[in-house]
């Protein structure tokens, strides 16, 4: 509960302390809008405030549920992989809710303005970002499917040849059967990947289709682009976390000591090890890269 309380306090401080008009102005400035006035800053502040409050609304109950259900989970574990799912997933869900909420908002003034330009996904998210995200999703699915195919094969191999004696493989012999038997099913990883894909697609679609947040089409375009790019970046990082976990569950080190296994298993195991090590940092780098405002491109935006 200490973790929950401290997280609530930190997030509350963020929500209350940061989102004022200067915060909105800073957001717009970072995204290339230099001619700022009070209305633009207020619009951006409202955009930020809504998303941060919703993040709090989604994340705090999720934290409480997780810390209640996983009483025996150590703080280290809660701070590592599980917290990545929790934090990134909560932010993604809150973004989805925020865009949906913004989509419900209709113009109230009797005079309404629309810009005669058709909006597309490619206006908001660069193609390379979508390709990287979809590639990461494909890797996650491949890892999940490979896990469900490889594990039964490894178990058959193990049953055919007895495990090495304890004195020969003191660290692995006892773990070999236990590891393979204890691995939980793959479907939660597949479900997580699919849910992440659905959430990202939902945020991007809503960012394209929702009504204008302001009559200033440049500010509106910036807020849409930010939502879509942050969602794709977050989705990539979250999927990278799932991919790493799915790849780690392949446990190549166990298969390496199966007697009679083909030679390519060793090579594949080494390659798999490096992919497992690198995939998560790669996801974080892509997240930061995609989410960082593209100054030169935005400077050309009308």
């Amino acid at each position, binding site marked *: 509960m200490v973790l929950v309380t401290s997280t609530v306090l930190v997030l509350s401080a963020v929500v209350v302390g940061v989102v004022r008009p200067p915060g909105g102005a800073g957001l717009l400035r970072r995204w290339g809008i230099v001619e700022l006035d009070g209305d633009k800053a207020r619009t951006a502040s409202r955009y930020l405030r809504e998303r941060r409050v919703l993040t709090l609304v989604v994340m705090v109950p999720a934290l409480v549920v997780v810390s209640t259900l996983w009483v025996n989970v150590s703080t280290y574990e809660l701070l590592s992989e599980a917290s990545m799912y929790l934090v990134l997933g909560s932010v993604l869900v809150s973004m989805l809710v925020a865009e949906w909420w913004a989509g419900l908002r209709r113009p109230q003034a009797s005079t*309404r303005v629309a810009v005669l330009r058709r909006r597309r996904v490619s206006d908001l998210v660069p193609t390379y970002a979508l390709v990287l995200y979809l590639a990461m999703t494909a890797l996650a699915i491949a890892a999940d499917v490979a896990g469900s195919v490889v594990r039964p094969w490894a178990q058959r191999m193990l049953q055919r040849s007895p495990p090495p004696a304890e004195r020969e493989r003191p660290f692995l012999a006892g773990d070999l059967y236990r590891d393979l038997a204890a691995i939980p099913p793959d479907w939660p990883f597949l479900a997580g990947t699919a849910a992440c894909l659905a959430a990202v697609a939902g945020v991007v679609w809503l960012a394209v289709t929702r009504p204008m947040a302001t009559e200033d089409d440049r500010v509106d375009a910036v807020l849409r682009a930010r939502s879509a790019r942050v969602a794709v970046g977050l989705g990539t990082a979250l999927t990278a976390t799932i991919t790493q976990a799915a790849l780690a569950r392949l446990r190549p080190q166990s298969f390496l000591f199966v007697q009679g296994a083909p030679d390519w298993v060793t090579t594949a195991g080494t390659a798999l090890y490096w992919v497992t090590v690198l995939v998560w940092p790669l996801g974080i780098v892509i997240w930061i890269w995609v989410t960082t405002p593209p100054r030169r491109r935005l400077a050309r*935006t009308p």
Partner: protein
Amino acid sequence: MTAAAPRLVVDLDSGVPPWRQVRDQLLGLIAAGHLTVGAQLPTIRQLATDLGLAAGTVARAYRELETAGVLHTARRRGTLVAAIPAAQSQTALATLAADYATRARALGADLDTALAACRAAYTHQEHRQ
């Protein structure tokens, strides 16, 4: 910097039905050259959402302009400007003709001379093309 996209303003208190405001403004923007032939328009849903109108209201304006041959809807490319509205181009031509007649008369040219000059200008431009 690319050119700013044209805007459409609907005033619900003006007494003019919103679909007519949308239709007339689109006609005006096309006739004035702000929307050229081949320009892509927003989808009905996008325009209706941005203006806070029912999709049917915008659809009616688009349908009227499609019937008049000003807009064309293709399955993949969406709604495009197909042609400059005939009535609007006739009006623009009449304005130009009136201006030309005034200037020709100021130069002392009679109708035949003015028509001959106009014909010669047309012939000259056709040769250049």
